[in-house]
C-alpha cells in the first residue's frame, strides 16, 4: 500500500516537472514577441531622443550621414505605399479570379494539378524573386517604356511592384479559395434556381458572402508586401522620392532599414537607430493589419460555421 502511494506521489511530481519544462518552452514564443517589441521600441526611443518624432512622420527630407542629418520619412512611406499598391493591383484580381476558377469551375483533376503549382510560387525564396525583378523585369520595363516614348528608371517602382505582386498571388488565391469553398452550396443553388447565370451567382452571391475572407486575404497580402525586403532591396531605388510616377525609382521602409544597418555607421548613431524607428512603424502597421485580418476570418467562421479555415 505504501509503495503504491509513493509511486503515485513520484508520478505526480514527475508530471509537474514535465509540465513546467514544457511550459517554459512555450514561454519562448511569448518572450520572442516581447523581445521583438522591446528591442525595437527601446532603440526607437533612443532615436527619437536624438531626432524629432514629428519631423520623422511629417518631414520629406531623408539625408542620413551628412552634417545636420534630417530624418523625414514621408518619401519612404510614399514609396512603400506605391510599391505595395502596384503589388496589390497585380495580385488581388489575379489571385481572386484564380481562386474563383479553382473553386467554382475547375474539375477535380485540374484543381489538384494547378493548386500545388500555384503554391510553388509561394515557396520560392524572395531573394530569387529579387534577382528576377532586377535582371529580367526591370530591363524589360525600361525597354517597353522606351518603346512607348516614356522614360523608366532601371530601379523603377513598377518592376519591384509587379514581381512582388506575383509573389503575393498564391497568398491571396489560397486563402480566397478556402473561403469561397466554404460558402454553403445552398446559397448557390438558391440563386441558380431563381434563374441567375453562374457568373451572376458568383458575383452577387458567392463573392459577397466570401468577402470577409477575401478582405482578410488582401490584408495579409498587404502586410506581406509592406514587410517584403529582398525584392525591393535588389530591384527598387535607394533614394526617397515623392512622386506619383511608378516608372521612377522609389525606396521603401525595408530598404531603408537594410541600408541603415549595413552601412558604415557606428551602432547608436541616429543613422543606425533610424532603422529601428522605421522597424517600429512597420511592426505596428503589420500587426494591426494582421489583427484585423484574423478578426474578419473569425467573423466569417462564425457566420458559416466553417471549421476548415
Amino acid at each position, binding site marked *: 500500500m505504501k509503495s503504491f502511494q509513493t509511486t503515485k506521489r513520484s508520478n505526480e511530481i514527475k508530471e509537474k516537472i514535465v509540465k513546467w519544462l514544457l511550459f517554459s518552452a512555450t514561454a519562448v514564443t511569448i518572450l520572442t514577441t516581447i523581445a521583438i517589441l522591446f528591442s525595437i521600441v527601446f532603440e526607437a526611443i533612443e532615436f527619437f531622443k536624438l531626432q524629432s518624432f514629428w519631423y520623422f512622420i511629417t518631414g520629406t527630407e531623408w539625408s542620413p550621414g551628412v552634417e545636420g542629418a534630417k530624418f523625414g520619412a514621408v518619401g519612404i512611406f510614399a514609396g512603400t505605399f506605391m510599391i505595395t499598391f502596384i503589388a496589390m493591383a497585380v495580385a488581388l484580381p489575379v489571385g481572386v479570379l484564380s481562386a474563383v476558377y479553382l473553386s467554382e469551375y475547375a474539375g477535380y483533376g485540374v484543381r489538384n494539378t494547378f493548386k500545388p503549382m500555384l503554391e510553388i510560387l509561394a*515557396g520560392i*525564396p524572395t531573394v530569387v524573386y529579387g534577382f528576377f525583378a532586377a535582371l529580367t523585369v526591370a530591363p524589360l520595363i525600361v525597354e517597353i517604356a522606351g518603346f512607348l516614348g516614356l522614360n523608366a528608371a532601371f530601379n523603377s517602382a513598377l518592376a519591384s511592384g509587379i514581381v512582388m505582386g506575383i509573389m503575393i498571388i498564391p497568398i491571396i488565391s489560397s486563402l480566397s479559395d478556402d473561403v469561397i469553398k466554404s460558402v454553403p452550396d445552398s446559397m448557390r443553388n438558391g440563386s441558380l434556381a431563381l434563374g441567375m447565370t453562374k457568373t451572376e451567382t458568383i458575383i452577387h452571391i458567392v463573392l459577397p458572402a466570401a468577402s470577409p475572407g477575401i478582405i482578410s486575404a488582401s490584408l495579409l497580402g498587404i502586410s506581406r508586401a509592406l514587410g517584403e525586403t529582398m525584392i525591393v532591396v535588389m530591384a527598387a531605388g535607394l533614394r526617397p522620392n515623392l512622386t506619383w510616377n511608378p516608372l521612377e525609382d522609389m525606396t521603401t521602409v525595408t530598404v531603408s532599414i*537594410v541600408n541603415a544597418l549595413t552601412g558604415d555607421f557606428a551602432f547608436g548613431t541616429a543613422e543606425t537607430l533610424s532603422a529601428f524607428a522605421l522597424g517600429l512603424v512597420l511592426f505596428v502597421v503589420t500587426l494591426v493589419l494582421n489583427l484585423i485580418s484574423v478578426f474578419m476570418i473569425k467573423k466569417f467562421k462564425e457566420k458559416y460555421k466553417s471549421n476548415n479555415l
Partner: protein
Amino acid sequence: MNHNPFYDPTLKKRHRFNRIFRFFALGSLILSLFFLFIFLFDMVSKGLPAYKQTYLLLDVEYTEQSLDDGRMAIDRDYRAVVSRAWFRDFSVEFAKKPELMNTKAKVWVLANAEVDQYVKGSKHRLKDREIALVDRLKEEGRVEKRLNLIFFLTGDSKIPENSGFYSAIVGSVLTMLVCMAVAFPLGVMTAIYLEEFGKDGKISTLIEVNINNLNAVPSILFGLLGLAIFINLFGLPRSTPLVGGLTLALMTLPVIIVSSRAALRSVPDSIRQAGYGLGLTKIQVVRDHVLPLAFPGMMTGSIIGLAQAIGETAPLIIVGMIAFIPDAPSGVMDAATVMPAQIFTWAGMPERAYIERTAAGILVLLAVLISLNTLAIYLRKKFEVKW
C-alpha cells in the same frame, strides 16, 4: 419568340457575360502559372551555362621566373586570356613539384571570365585581338568547356571564374543545424504543452494569438531582434551561423508549432483513453503512445519550416551574414555566408560572369527546396494513418 412569357431580352447579353467571366477567371489562373514558367525558364537559361567552364590548352614553361611569377609560365600573347586565379595557383603548385623545373608541357589552363563568356556566346568585354586569339585556339581544338567543379568546390572570390558556392552551402548547413537544434525541440514541446497539458487555459489562448501574430511579423524585424538581442545584448559574434541560426529559429518556431499541434490533434482520443484505462500516467501516454504516432506529422511540418528558413535572406543580412567569405566556415562561431546571401552578393556584382553564377546558385537553392518539399510529401504519404 416574343410570345414566350419567359423571354428575357437581356438573356443573350447575360450569357455572353457569363462566358467572358469564365474566360477571365481561367485567364488569370493561366497567367499566374505563366509567371511561374517564365520565371523557371529564365533562371534555367541564365544559370545552366555556369555549370560549364572554359579551359584552354596552352604551352606552360616551368622556369625560375615562372616560379616567382606565375604569369611568366604562359607566352606573353596568351596572358590576357588566362585567369588570374590560375597564375596564382600555378606558382603554389609548381613550388610543390621542383622536379618539373626547366621543362615544358601542354596544360589545360583556366580561361578568364571574359573569354568564358565569349565562348558561351554571352556579352563580353574582349578586345578584337583577344577574340582573334580565342577563335584561333578554337579552330585548333584547344578550347574546351568542362564541368565547372570550381563552382561546387570553392568559396567566394573576387575573380569571377574562380568563385564558387561551396562556402555558402556549408554556411547554410551550419545555420540550419543551429536553427533546427533550437526550433524543433522548442516547437514540439510547445505543441505538446498546448495540446496535451495546458488545454483551454487563458494562457493557451494568449499563446495561440501570439503565435498567429509571430507568423505575420515581417522577417526583417526578426533581423532587428537578432541584432539588438543576440549581438548587442548577449555579445554573440556577428556574421556567424550561431546568430543566424538562432534568429531563424525564432522565425521557424511558429511554423513548427502549428504543424506539430495539428499532428498531435490528429491522434484519436481513443488511444489516450486506452492508455489511461490500462493505468498509464499522462507522461507515459504522451511519451509512449501519442508522440510516436504524431512524430511523422511533426517531421513533415519541420521540414517545410526548414525549407522556408533556408531561403530566408533579410534577417541574415541584418545580422551581418553577407560578408565576403572565401573559405568555408569550420564551426558555428566562424563568420559565414549562406546560399541566399551569396546569391544576393553576386547579384550586386557588375561583372557579367557573376550573373551566370547567381542564377546557377539559385538553381542549387531551388533544387534543395524542391527535394526538401518532396521529402516532406513523401513522409506524409508514407506515414499517413487513416483512423
